[in-house]
């Protein structure tokens, strides 16, 4: 479904991603692992067209998308939950959700009612402005907004970050529910245990280079890799 072939991305003159290649198959859930500053966010931003790679190829469902502006990427069916969540602060919860659906114009399973069933708290806070939300609520709203675009691939940046263990457990269930509706996921996260619960396959990034890949079980079992690339 998504193939990245040797992409190189720069911030100014610093060469952030170096020949990064990865594949996400339809229906799969794939993790991008690595320490802070390894290039996980940049990888997601490169796919989304927010930080366009200088070279390399990105194909999504067979269409080349490298160099497309973010709104074209979104309309092709990729949605994005950034690590800082980026709720539109002066729109209400409902408006944040509906705007995504109206702008993206992709028909599909997800409607505001469906998203509110998934996250009941969003129904309670329907008319409140995004600015007043707690961190966890913002996360649900940002994820809900990504779903409202009815994408076929969702990019999630640090979904488990800053959540209490109990909430992370809930998130694992939620992601399971989302996947039942045929969504493919690519998520960047530092929480190896969480990734093992929600993903089948993983890539490990270090200093902008893919240094290891494998099934999540294999990564989990490989103590040397975990110690070398992931232990803090």
């Amino acid at each position, binding site marked *: 479904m998504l193939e990245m072939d040797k992409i190189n991305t720069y911030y100014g003159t610093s060469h952030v991603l170096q020949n990064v290649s990865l594949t996400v198959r339809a229906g799969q859930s794939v993790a991008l692992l690595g320490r802070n500053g390894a290039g996980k966010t940049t990888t997601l931003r490169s796919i*989304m067209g*927010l930080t366009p790679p200088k070279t390399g190829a990105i194909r999504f469902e067979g269409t080349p998308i490298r160099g497309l*502006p*973010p*709104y074209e990427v*979104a*309309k092709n069916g990729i*949605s*994005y939950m*950034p690590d800082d969540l*980026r709720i*539109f*602060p*002066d*729109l209400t919860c409902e*408006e944040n959700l509906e*705007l*995504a659906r*109206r*702008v*993206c*114009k992709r028909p599909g399973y997800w409607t505001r009612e469906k998203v509110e069933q998934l996250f009941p708290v969003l129904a309670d806070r329907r008319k409140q402005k995004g600015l007043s939300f707690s961190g966890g609520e913002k996360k649900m709203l940002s994820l809900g*907004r990504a779903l409202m*675009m009815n994408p076929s691939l969702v990019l999630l940046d640090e979904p488990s970050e800053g959540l209490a263990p109990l909430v992370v457990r809930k998130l694992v269930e939620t992601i399971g529910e989302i996947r039942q509706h045929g969504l493919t996921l690519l998520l960047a996260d530092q929480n190896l245990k969480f990734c093992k619960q929600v993903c089948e396959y993983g890539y490990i990034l270090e200093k902008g280079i893919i240094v290891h890949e494998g099934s999540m079980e294999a990564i989990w079992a490989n103590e040397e890799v975990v110690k070398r690339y992931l232990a803090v």
Partner: protein
Amino acid sequence: MESFVHVCLAGISAGMFIWLVASGLTLIFGVLRVLNFAHGSFYMLGAYLCYTCLRFLGIDFWLGVIVGPLAVCVVGYVMERFLLRRVYDLELPYQLLLTFSMVLIFDELVKIIWGAGSIGSPSVPGLSGSLMIAGRNFPVYNLFIMIVGPLVAVGLWAFLERSWWGKIIRAAASDREMAAAIGVKVPSLYTAVFVIGAWLSAVGGALAVPYVGLLTTGMGEAIIINAFVVVVIGGLGSLKGAFLGALFIGLLSSFGTRYIPTLDMSLTFILMGVVLLWRPQGFFAGVDR
């Protein structure tokens, strides 16, 4: 007492023209993050094109108020689409240079097309008389302007708060990158916002035709300076600030001219200086968009 009421009324009506220019200026800044020096030129072009409609094409003033600003929308479209778009990613001085050069170009174009001299402006059918207010005559047209200004404010507020277009504009103003990531075609949105801003300013100019009495190429610069003061005081990007600021500047210069004529023009700048020292972000920055 009589003169006090009249000075107030004159100030409010003058403020409404500044508001129409400042509203577009602040809207464009809020979304595009570009300070458009040439915004006063849209006001001037709106006035000249409206005047042309009624003097040379022989159409009604009211039709001129519609047609003139629509023509300015085309000018605004071309300017954003083919010039401004090239400088968004450059540093601020490039944007200022470009929009300032547009001021000079528009001024010269107006001189070439309409001549260097001022042209007398006509009276408006239906609104040319005056009313007795507080013992003196006050032009009906100025009262009409005092109604139009707030109506535009309410209309603009409703558009931004209630319509989905307005919500998209607010979303992009607060976070253009995320707006693009949910599928907002940001370049088209920028063009649309720029054209709306140009239209607001041009409507101000068209409506100013009977008010100012004389059309001159300097009218654009005169109003843009006031509009800049207004948006600085009100807070860049804030429509509420622009409305209240325009009202305030209108009143201040009206009272200044009447009671302290020696300070007249400098009063607004003194005020701006004080505000900048005391509250550099303006009074409404960050309160709304």
